[in-house]
């Protein structure tokens, strides 16, 4: 299995059936696989912050979800994480496709890309980086366990070292 297949497979093995997302090319590779499987409920968000609310509602109703977005989207989620998911103790994984690191061509993605770990640290959100295909299973299973035993969101950062970068000059 390659990394998108591994991610989808670990989610399913952990009863996580709902994916809320704002797409980018990286997230798109995961969605292409998940959308073929009727097990998954996939919701396109107009803005990433909605996903924090949707996952909160789903969790209270007994369904588990993940949020998938690009690093820019974390900026749109900060208040909902700080004032809803963290204080109400809503566990879930956020997959953040990181711009602004290896291979970036666009200066307007650099600042948020570099800021995501600092933002997560400032809110006390644990984060783990996927940069090698062989560690995907270990990190995801571990992060899911940590999220649901602490009732807190946990972030998974998808590094361009694993997922590649946009081929633009």
């Amino acid at each position, binding site marked *: 299995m390659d990394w998108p297949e591994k991610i989808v497979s670990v989610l399913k093995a952990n009863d996580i059936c709902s994916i809320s997302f704002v797409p980018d090319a990286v997230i798109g590779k995961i969605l292409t696989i998940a959308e073929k499987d009727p097990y998954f409920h996939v919701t396109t968000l107009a803005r990433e912050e909605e996903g924090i*609310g949707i*996952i909160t*509602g*789903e969790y*209270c109703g007994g369904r588990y979800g993940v949020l998938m977005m690009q690093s820019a989207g974390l900026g749109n989620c900060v208040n909902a994480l700080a004032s*809803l998911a963290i204080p109400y103790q809503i566990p879930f994984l956020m997959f953040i496709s990181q711009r602004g690191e290896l291979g970036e061509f666009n200066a307007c993605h650099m600042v948020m890309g570099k800021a995501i770990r600092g933002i997560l640290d400032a809110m006390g959100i644990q984060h783990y980086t996927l940069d090698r295909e062989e560690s995907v299973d270990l990190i995801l299973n571990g992060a899911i366990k940590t999220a649901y035993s602490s*009732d807190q969101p946990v972030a998974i950062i998808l590094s361009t070292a694993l997922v590649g970068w946009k081929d633009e000059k």
Partner: protein
Amino acid sequence: MINRLEATRYLVQQLTDEPVIASCGNPKFDLYTAAGEREANFYMWNSMGMASSIGLGLAMARPDKKVIVLDGDGAILMNLNSLTTAASKSPSNLVHIIWDNGQYQITGGQPTHTSGKADLESIARGAGFHKVSTVDTMAAFKEALSQILSEPGPWFLVAKTDSAGAPGRPPKSPVHIKNQFMKGLSVKGERQ
């Protein structure tokens, strides 16, 4: 003009175990004053604008329950994009009620854009909701609610309200609120 507490009291009298999500600001004070003893009430202490998204998530996860969102005009103006997501998913069990008094009541009554040119009913239609209406009397609210609770949605109802306050204050602990709410939905918090 509708008195928001009176309308909230009337609404909860019509309910059995339907989950109700009350936005930050006054909707949660009214809901707690009207029905503080209900387990299936979710009180938001912040995350302004998120009520509509929480309601959508719950409605999608629990098609067996009619999900009621009590929102404010200021709050929904902060998350208008969520209306396009809700209309796109269109869960038939979603009921989104806006208490629209044209002001940020909790911060001193500064006007919102619905006191000027913005029309939430038109915005909801434009987002893709079909079952949309606006009411400004208690009689019209009761009539609309009767239809909402007996027919499939999703529903979007704008109720023009006054800005009277309610004395009730829900518990301050977010975790307590969540646990009570999940108990009301018969969902166990522990998963592993």
